[in-house]
């Protein structure tokens, strides 16, 4: 295990060990994978001593979250509800508090589970991922970052330095609804809705290999629900032991309607 104290050292290690290395952020997914021997990297690069990654801030119209920031740190930030209300709504649904105490926002994004709330938020808000390797830094749109279930466009020598959640304009409404079998379980279906006037963005997590995002212009809630109905009938929906595709389509409609209503009636102190 390597325990570097700067981004530069991390990038050197990644350049050297690349394919044989895994980044250890909060470890709430990676360590179980190690325990079950699903992953057996020769090198672990622990981010916990790299202070520059343990920061989040509002910059260039986005909430920028560094690779070492835990979910509970962000959840406990007193300005989260007015800066990024969608995340505030989602955190109680991300596993359990002892997991959020170590699990990181970026780690969840890096893992790219299509039912993960952080992935759904980044996709629905149209966010981005900042990746660095020794030679360059690049920013990738969320839609280009997630390639499939647990698959991303990160190269083996790259570190996710931060993710950026764009801050929406004043008056934007947010909604979130999720269905899982027990509290803290993976979402069977999760829906996030962002409404800016007549422009609606609806993201569905858990339905397929990547989060599905759909945008429409609608002047009434009925129109939005009609749109969700159509989506639920037409888009590709996976079937697995946790739920049939029929149940998932049903949940897209019911959770979708709930989240849309919440976004329609949203009255947060939201400020941009």
């Amino acid at each position, binding site marked *: *295990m*390597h*325990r570097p104290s700067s981004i530069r050292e991390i990038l050197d290690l990644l350049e050297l060990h690349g394919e044989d290395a895994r980044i250890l952020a909060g*470890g*709430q997914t990676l*360590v*179980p994978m190690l*325990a*079950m021997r699903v992953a057996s990297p020769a090198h*672990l690069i*622990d981010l*916990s001593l790299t202070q520059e990654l343990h920061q989040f801030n509002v910059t260039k119209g986005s909430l920028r979250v560094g690779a070492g920031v835990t979910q*509970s740190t962000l959840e406990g930030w007193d300005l989260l509800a007015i800066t990024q209300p969608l995340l505030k709504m989602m955190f109680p649904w991300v*596993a*359990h*508090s*002892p*997991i959020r*105490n*170590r699990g990181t926002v970026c780690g969840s994004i890096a893992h790219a589970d299509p039912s993960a709330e952080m992935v759904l938020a980044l996709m629905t808000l149209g966010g981005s991922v900042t990746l660095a390797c020794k030679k360059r830094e690049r920013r990738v749109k969320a839609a280009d970052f997630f390639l499939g279930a647990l698959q991303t466009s990160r190269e083996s020598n790259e570190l996710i330095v931060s993710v950026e959640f764009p801050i929406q304009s004043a008056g934007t409404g947010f909604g979130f609804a999720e269905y899982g079998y*027990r*509290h*803290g379980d993976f979402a069977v279906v999760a829906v996030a809705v962002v409404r800016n006037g007549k422009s609606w963005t609806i993201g569905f997590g858990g339905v397929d290999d990547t989060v599905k995002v759909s945008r429409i212009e609608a002047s009434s809630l009925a129109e939005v629900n009609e749109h969700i109905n159509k989506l639920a009938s037409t888009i590709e929906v996976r079937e697995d032991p946790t739920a049939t595709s029929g149940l998932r389509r049903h949940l897209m409609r019911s959770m979708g309607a709930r989240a849309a209503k919440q976004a329609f009636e949203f009255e947060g102190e939201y400020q941009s």
Partner: protein
Amino acid sequence: MTEQSIHLTINGIERAAKCEDRTALLDFVRHDLGLTGTHAGCEHGVCGACTVEVNGQIVRSCLMFACQANGASVKTVEGIAQAGELSDLQAAFKKHHALQCGFCTPGFLMAAEDLLQKNTSPSDSEVREGLSGNLCRCTGYVGIVEAVLEVAEQRRNAIGDTHA
């Protein structure tokens, strides 16, 4: 770099020890420090039996490496009892039959203590939600919830008494 020297404070006592990189905090606490109150259940973060407090936050000790606790202050279930006496929470678990085999109890005590620190008057559902990361496979949750609610009330009353 396979073995490291680490220093940590465990239940208020400073300890120095060597550990392998691969050693989980859970195994370090049990085998190297001899504190076997923390239990190894699922060992992949699901059951909560291994819950300990690290720098004031409860975590799964099976999902953290011992070397990551270097310099940290760690509290285990052994740190809950005061001077050999059961704490109010432990006594309430006993009274309400909140344990049967007792395997999950150390994790529940750590999680419940954390919950009570954050929320002094939790509702039934808040207790259930707060403890939802811990699994009990024999006695069920009713007694556990009752014990936690009773302690919350006792502590509120105690604070009221001193102020009266």
